[in-house]
């Protein structure tokens, strides 16, 4: 082995990073070559001197970084229920009725952050408590982070359903401008990270009935009943295949739970199985609940 190839391997020899063969060759060269052997020692000394030059940052960024990756959570109890709420400066970021572990795991997955216990700001607490008690929340402070455009739109549409009323998944799809994306919309409702506050429980299947819910349909019925929805009446309408009701006097038809529909007198009430049936009979859709959107 020549000096040149020995010298390029001296440093690797120092840290035992050479293969058996290479090591043998280099070592036998060093025995015969004084200057290369010196170089080995030289590298060792230089390495130690350079190591001592390592500098620490003037100020650790640990606190800044940890604040960037940790948010807070708290327990909120209202309406006979307890939920775990994760929040940041932007607002409520996640709610679960299951457990802290469930919250932590899903939070890390969605937002990539840890959670630590802290007291929830009163304004946020009021919103959660109102939602649990069935009083509804006007415009909740919700921070979904980097949510997709469709998810944001779906959440906004859900928030526009008034307390005590229900809409269908196809209605939501229409509201977000994606009338054919009923499935996608429904899956966003199902994966709603801030249930109760963003009222995904106010969306029911077009076919009628109350439908499924992340915490079971019993809880959905209970939540709706608390908000003033006559859940049994919904079931009854579903059995008869009634989707809309109209008023003989105004010639307007609505979702059965629309506040205007609830005012229709019994003798003026006309049930419809679909929007086209109502249109044929000369009825126009209600401008408040916009049933035509769900045609």
């Amino acid at each position, binding site marked *: 082995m020549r000096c040149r190839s020995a*010298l*390029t*391997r*001296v*440093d*690797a020899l*120092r*840290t*035992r*990073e050479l293969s058996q063969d290479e090591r043998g060759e280099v*070592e036998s060269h*060093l*025995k015969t070559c004084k200057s290369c*052997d*010196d170089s*080995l*020692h*030289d*590298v*060792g*000394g*230089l*390495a*130690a*001197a*350079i*190591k*001592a*030059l*390592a*500098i*620490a*940052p*003037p*100020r*650790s*960024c*640990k606190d*800044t*970084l*940890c604040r*960037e*990756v940790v948010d807070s959570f708290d327990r909120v109890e209202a309406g006979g229920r307890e939920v775990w709420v994760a929040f940041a400066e932007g607002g409520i970021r996640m709610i679960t009725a299951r457990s802290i572990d469930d919250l*932590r*795991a899903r939070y*890390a*997955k969605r937002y*990539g*952050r*840890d959670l630590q216990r802290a007291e929830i700001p009163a304004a946020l607490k009021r919103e959660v408590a109102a939602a649990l008690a069935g009083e509804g929340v006007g415009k909740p402070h919700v921070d979904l982070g980097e949510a997709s455009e469709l998810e944001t739109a779906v959440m906004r549409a859900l928030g526009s359903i008034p307390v005590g009323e229900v809409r269908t998944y196809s209605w939501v799809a229409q509201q977000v401008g994606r009338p054919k994306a009923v499935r996608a919309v429904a899956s966003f409702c199902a994966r709603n990270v801030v249930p109760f506050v963003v009222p995904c429980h106010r969306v029911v299947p077009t076919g009628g009935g109350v439908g499924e819910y992340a915490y079971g349909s019993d809880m959905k019925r209970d939540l709706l009943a608390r908000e003033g929805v006559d859940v049994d009446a919904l079931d009854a309408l579903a059995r008869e295949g009634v989707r809309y009701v109209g008023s003989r006097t105004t010639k307007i038809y609505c979702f059965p739970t629309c506040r205007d529909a609830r005012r229709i007198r019994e003798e003026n009430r006309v049930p419809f199985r679909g929007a086209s049936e109502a249109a044929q009979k000369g009825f126009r859709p209600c401008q408040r609940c916009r049933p035509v959107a769900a045609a």
Partner: protein
Amino acid sequence: MKNSWTGGQAALATAGSVENLALAVHRSEPGAFERLIDRFEAPLFSYAESVLQNRFDAQEVVQDALLRAHRALTRQYDEARCEALALRPWLFRTVRNLSLNKRRSKRSKLEQPLDDFDDGRMGPFVHLEGSDLERKQEVELLRRAIALLPVDARELIVLRFMEEMSYGEIARTIGSSEAALRGKVFRSLKLLREALEKKGVNYAV
């Protein structure tokens, strides 16, 4: 034959405990990210500083890199990928890419005389146990000699001798073969020796 093995053993000793940290951060274990910062912030800073020769930029780059790492580990990489991840080269590579980006954009903005080191930046960071003036001066000369090297030689010196990385890890960090690296490290050392000799220091220790 006079030997000095310490560097290699130190490099090997840290390798084991580092592996699980990626997984721990991925699983959001309490304090995992803090441990990762504790372990890597200073070495990454030293490295970034050597490339950028500016501690403010270096700190910015390290902070950005650690945040990116956290995001990738918790949100992009799955369990298997985190488990198989060689954390140290991966972090250094992130810092390297960010540093080189920053260097490039800075240089295009203003022509910094990078070969001029005498601006007081090197001053306050010298930590020495002994108060031996001669030794202190020697250390300072070494620091300045390294600062004068071209950037690729400088980063190799830092990775290899300050951070005590194995050739395999350096290869993964900067994307080169181990055989080629041996030559590069050798040439970088040669440049450093020449620079030191010019200053009248013969590192025969």
